[in-house]
């Protein structure tokens, strides 16, 4: 069985924060560039570790899948 990277873990942290905190706490987190940057650095580090185990073909496949997600995001944002 191949390795699966759960992007929910990598990307839903901010969404969880929004739903699980008071408005003030959420606003504070949202406004803290330091916290945002820390989370970003951590996310990059975790992602990098996982990408290292993937073949070049799998990396390119992931690019295409990310692209599909981007198109879906545009459909909601830009209509």
């Amino acid at each position, binding site marked *: *069985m*191949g*390795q*699966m*990277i*759960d*992007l*929910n873990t*990598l*990307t*839903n942290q*901010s*969404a969880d924060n929004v739903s699980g905190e008071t408005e003030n706490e959420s606003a504070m987190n949202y406004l803290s560039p330091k916290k945002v940057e820390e989370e*970003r650095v951590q*996310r*990059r580090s975790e*992602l*990098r570790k*996982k*990408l*290292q*185990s*993937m*073949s*070049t*073909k*799998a*990396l*390119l*496949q*992931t*690019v*295409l*899948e*990310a*692209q*599909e*997600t*981007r198109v*879906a*995001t*545009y459909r*909601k*944002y*830009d*209509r």
Partner: protein
Amino acid sequence: MEGQLDWKGSHFANVLLCDRGLDQILETQNMSHYPHICSEATASFSVLSDTIKALHNMLMEREEIESASQVGQLQKAEMEKLNLTAALHLERIREQAHDWEEERDGNCSSIGKLLRESVQSLQSKISTCVETINESIDEIRATMIEIED
């Protein structure tokens, strides 16, 4: 079996993005939702850009120059498209606001024409970006076919 990212399990974009778009906002004339939509879309695009850049860096480290170049070209075009799309949204909002003003006051000025031309110009530039993006995707697919399993 190859390792892969679990995009299907990651429905973060669907969770983050509410079911409202610019057209609906302009139609209802309720602009209060727009900043919310923008911040949610920004968060989603930011995560996607980070992922693509990480993939690009990994390809560079492996000296997969051709593949890295294709991914880099794709990301560059996507960044440009996002900037143009944001500009288009602002211009459409201006155009709509101007139309409302004209309708209310019964005036007709050349500003409306300029705004419509600006919207068309941005839409044309976005179309060019989309062509570049599609070419990059085709190149990536072709490269994948060349790579042996």
